[in-house]
């Protein structure tokens, strides 16, 4: 548990499998955690009073967030993460099938770090997800 690089919040199991397959294919080694809805993700980062559960855990290097999620939707999760000083520096990549202008605008307003539309083409899907994860895990230099 103490070696979490990526937190994936995604309700579609097929998409998760495709992400993991792409990672495996490209040889990127990383620890990851998967939440199947927004509520699970929120409970991981915040206690019932809304305070950040800091503990001794190192924050993940990347949160891969779908927007259309059961219980608490992705936009709400993004809002919570970006409005707390302790979590707002964690890079969040929205990974969604929506290319609606409204969703893009709202995500960037809340402070999303990247916005990626899930390609329908499986080759592109694998390539894009590999690139974005590689970028945030290996190329980008975060605050700490």
């Amino acid at each position, binding site marked *: 548990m103490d070696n979490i690089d990526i937190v994936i919040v995604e309700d579609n199991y*097929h998409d998760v499998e*495709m992400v993991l397959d792409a990672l495996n294919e490209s040889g990127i080694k990383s620890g990851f955690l998967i939440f199947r809805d927004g509520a699970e993700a929120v409970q991981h980062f915040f206690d019932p009073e809304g305070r950040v559960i800091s503990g001794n855990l190192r924050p993940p290097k990347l949160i891969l967030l779908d927007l259309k999620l059961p219980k608490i939707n992705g936009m709400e999760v993004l809002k919570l993460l970006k409005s707390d000083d302790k979590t707002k520096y964690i890079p969040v990549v929205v990974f969604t099938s929506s290319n609606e202008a409204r969703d893009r605008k709202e995500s960037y307003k809340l402070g999303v770090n990247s916005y990626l539309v899930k390609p*329908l083409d499986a080759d592109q899907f694998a390539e894009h997800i590999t690139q974005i994860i590689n970028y945030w895990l290996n190329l980008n230099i975060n605050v700490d």
Partner: protein
Amino acid sequence: MINPLPRTVNIALLIALAIFISASAVIAISGFYIYQYQKKEIGRAASQQLAAIAELKVWEISNWRNERISDANVIYKNGSFAEDVVKYFNNPLSPELKKTVLSLITATQNSYQYQNILLIDKNKAVRLAIQKHDSDFGVRHSDIINKAFEINDIIVSDIHRDERNNSTHISVVIPIVMIKKSGPIPIGTVIILVDPQHRLYPTIKQWPMPGQTGEALLVHRDGNDVVYLNELRHLKNIPLMLRYPITETSLPAVKAVLGSKGAIEGIDYRKKKVFAVVKAVPDTTWFLVAKIDQEEIFASLAMRFWLTVFFILVTISIMGILIAYVWRYQQAKYYREQYELEYKRAFMYARSLIEASLDPMVTISPEGKIMDVNESTEFITGRSRKELIGSNFSNYFTEPEKADEGYKLVFEKGIVRDYPLSIRNCSGQVIDVLYNASLYKNDAGDVQGIFAAARDVTALRRAEKELKAAHDELELRVEERTDELKQANNALELEINERKEVEKLIALRTKLLEVTNKELESFSYSVSHDLRAPLRAIDGYSRMILRDQRDHLNDDAKRKFDLIRSNTQMMGKLIDDLLAFSRLGRLEINMTRLDMEGLVNDVWMELQIINPDRRIDFKVNKVPASKGDRTLIKQVYSNLLSNAVKYTKNRDRARIETGGYKGENENVYYVKDNGIGFDMDYYDKLFGVFQRLHSADEYEGTGVGLAIVQRIIHRHGGSVWAEGQVEEGAAFYFTLPIKD
């Protein structure tokens, strides 16, 4: 209210001020001139005095000098003296001869205390002297001795110094000659040494007037210097040693040697301003300067100056006080008159108010006697003022005891309000009144009596009765009207309810429309997300199988998996197009001016990039500018031109032509090609959604392009149509309305 001072008073004040200022100025100016005149007079008097003194001094000096010459003449004019001297010189050891010579010299010496008298022979040797002397005395005097023989007369030398003993002398040189037929023969010289300290300097120094600074100087010019010959009064000097260059022209002494005469002003050796009078001493090179400090002269003037100033100030002050006093008196008088006038007016005003009041008012003494009444009291009681004043106030009421009680109540409480009483007037008539009364005190706070004012309420009571009757009637009428109103109201309510129903219906429909719109939106959102997700999975797993099971699949299976994948992509494209099409119906249109020619060229550039290996003759004719939504119209051209490109792909010489023209109410635009065209029999299907006239294998596409074109143009208020012939090409037209 006191009136402010009238204008005339202000003007009077201005005149008084003007008189005061001008009088002050006249006094001050005349004071100044008097002072100037006095100063001048004093200066003149001082100069006259100095002139007199100078005159006196010069006279004394000349006198003194003449005396010395007379003394010398006794020797010079003595005919036998020369012979005695010759004899003595020839026989110097004879005591008789010496005695003879000495007797005259001694006699001279005795007439004045000369410093020394010496007899000198032709060889400048001293042969006889009364006092001690230097051996070279004769030699040192040889110049003046020679001169005396030359002119054959007595010479009185200038004052000169003997540096050896620091003494000052005047030498009187007497030539001794024998008169012979051949001419005078020089024998010797008698020199009388005169000490100026004796008599001469004291004479100069002595000042005939009392004073601190008066002084006489004796000066002469020596080259470019002026030399002070005597001892000074204010500076310890050695005569002949003090000298100033003649460039210092402010010095009276310099002025004197430069030729000034009479009264002058200057600055003396002490740097003090002085008055001076210069006078030359006759027969000498000397000048006498009599001078006195201006400060001393004007000392008395300073006193007079302050006296004058004091006098002026006192005069001005007295005048000012006088004017101010008169002014104040005038002002006080004015304000007193004004106040009295005002007081009278205020009194009259208050009295008229009291008299004008319709309420009867009385003042009652502590003893219950009426002290004052107004006209209303006379009127209500029917009795004269004369009769009322001094009588008992309670006499005029129907219940005198109750009146007394009320009266006492005023003393207890200080004030009584609306105390009901009834007055009986002289003719027996009873009038209902309400009394208001309060204590009346003097300045010291002692009770003097009470003020009481009654109000006749007879009319009020009558009015109350009338009012009640009117009110009752009114109430009746209001009831009637209310009934009528109620009926009208009911009718109105009915109508309002009907209208409300209609409004509700409209609101419901609007709401329904909103809901539908929202549903439509969420529908397309779901379509884009949820329809795509399984496709993504299908493609994803197909890809994994193709990758992971490559070795276990035969070529046919691989081909089929590839078909699965390409169909998935096709399905995605269909979904996108459908979504785009459905959105068009709801999109807002942003109308702007469009440069259609530029738009066509932009689209064509993009198409060339997408189809790099196509060779097409593309011709843009005149395209009129129009109004429309830039993005949507661009989409129209994009769809039409890409169709044209697509359907000419089998032509050796593909030709596409675009252009437009102005109609009456609309602009017409067209895109023509020489592609495969279409059969006009199927024209109906041309603009339908997902409708195709060619197989997807031959010509890729979803069949939405033209439907989109039609929808965009319709939304702009225009129309679309097409002309075609199989294998001959197609022409698509659309119009955009010309709006103001």
